[in-house]
């Protein structure tokens, strides 16, 4: 493990979702805080420290709070109480095609998405060609995205996200991009990034997948951390439940 400061810190994080009975209750909630609203506790006093260069697997059943955790790391969701500190650029391989504009060409979308991810012109120009190469879109790169197949969109999305030189990479294993050849290419790219000291957060149901990539794993159950440590032991606890 690294000796440097942690790159991701969760301090006593709680996340509660309000479950509004109907749209009437939601409308009233705009003006008046009712105590009757049902709540769902998605994360319950979660504290984690993740250091630079670590690759950490998040395991747990559906509804364990994995997605909520990821959303907080990517800066989409916010804790109800507690602190989440994330240092460095996060590339999330979760919603690859989010932010694309259908009417713009693939190339224009590289810029659009680049801006959305917080890059500036020169930074995007620098990575433009490697994105186009990686996505294998050929002449389609100057066609509007609405003409793309879903595979092409995902490839472009993946290529953009992975090439933005992230410090933290968030991967949901449920994600499958393109054909087997392209999937291998993605896997290799991810491994390449890991060797370059990029921090990886990997969510998976499959034990082999986690073992392949991670040394450390966090086992979540009903919003609480059951185990945090060596990946083999974590998987043991996970299957023993």
């Amino acid at each position, binding site marked *: 493990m690294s000796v440097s400061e942690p790159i991701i810190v969760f301090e006593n994080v709680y996340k509660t979702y309000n479950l509004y009975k109907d749209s009437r209750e*939601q409308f009233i909630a705009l003006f008046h805080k009712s105590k009757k609203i049902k709540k769902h506790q998605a994360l319950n006093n979660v504290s984690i420290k993740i250091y630079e260069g670590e690759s950490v697997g998040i395991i747990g059943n559906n509804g364990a709070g994995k997605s909520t955790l990821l959303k907080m790391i990517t*800066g989409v969701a916010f804790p109800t109480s507690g602190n989440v500190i994330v240092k460095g650029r996060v590339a999330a391989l979760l*919603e690859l095609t989010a932010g694309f*504009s259908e*009417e713009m060409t693939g190339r224009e979308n590289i810029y*659009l998405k680049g*801006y*959305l991810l917080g890059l500036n012109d020169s930074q995007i120009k620098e990575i433009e060609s490697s994105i186009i190469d990686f996505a294998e879109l050929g002449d389609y790169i100057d066609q509007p995205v609405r003409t793309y197949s879903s595979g092409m969109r995902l490839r472009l999305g993946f290529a953009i996200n992975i090439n933005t030189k992230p410090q933290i990479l968030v991967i949901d294993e449920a994600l499958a991009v393109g054909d087997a050849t392209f999937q291998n290419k993605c896997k290799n790219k991810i491994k390449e990034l890991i060797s370059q000291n990029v921090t990886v957060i990997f969510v998976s149901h499959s034990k082999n997948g986690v073992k392949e990539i991670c040394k450390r794993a966090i086992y979540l159950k009903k919003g609480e951390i059951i185990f945090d440590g060596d990946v083999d032991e974590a998987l043991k606890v996970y299957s023993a439940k």
Partner: protein
Amino acid sequence: MTSIFKEHKNQFKKILILAKTDLRKTYRGSFIGTGWALIKPSFTLFVYWFAFDIGIRQGREINGHSFFVFILPAFIAWFFMNDATILGAASIRQNSQYVKKMAFPVSTIITFSNLAKLYVHFMLTAIMYIILLLFGYYPNIYNLQFFLYCPFMFLFFLVLTWSTATMSAFSRDFQNLLNSIMTGIFWLTGIVYDTSAINIKWVQVIVYLNPFDFFVKGYRDTFIDNRWFFENPTRLCIILVEFVLLAILGMYNYKRLRKTLPDVL
């Protein structure tokens, strides 16, 4: 209090690009394209002119103007205010992918969405100016007030949208409520009639409190009535107070609801 301003730091370029994208999205894939931005208001204007001037008023002048000239600047201001209110309120919900799927300065959605409407407004204003020239309303110093009224109108509806867009994103009912109210506001605003001609005290109070009427009147003063914005200091004070109150309310609502938006959208 500062979160909206912080979110806009160094985002200028992104906001401009997204405003452009927003415009393209609105008029995409149709043969006439951006032309619709002109056709729709032209048609609305024609219908009101026909109903009132030909129909109800039968060609009488109003305050020394032909009816068409009287409603033209008012409608140009109204189109922007109406779009900024209704579409601005829908902006966060419409761009929910930015809220739900990436870390994004959500308040800039409101800005780029309203900027896109402002672009259309510039086009319409330019066309209006040409039409007024044809009607014999030649350029004069009062016209320069456009550069005060227009930015102020933009800012006024921007801070209003801080509240309405976040609340509409939180509850669809709020959005529907707003849409219904806007129809009423159209008729309460002096667009097809002159509110200052009504000599009833309580009506005047309502008129003075109605920001829509302020801008409609402002556009008229600027382009056809040749009056300065400071000629009615009471109104000016009221609108400035309203602006400050709305800005504070907007910052409060945004701060209160921002973090819950990814959960409810």
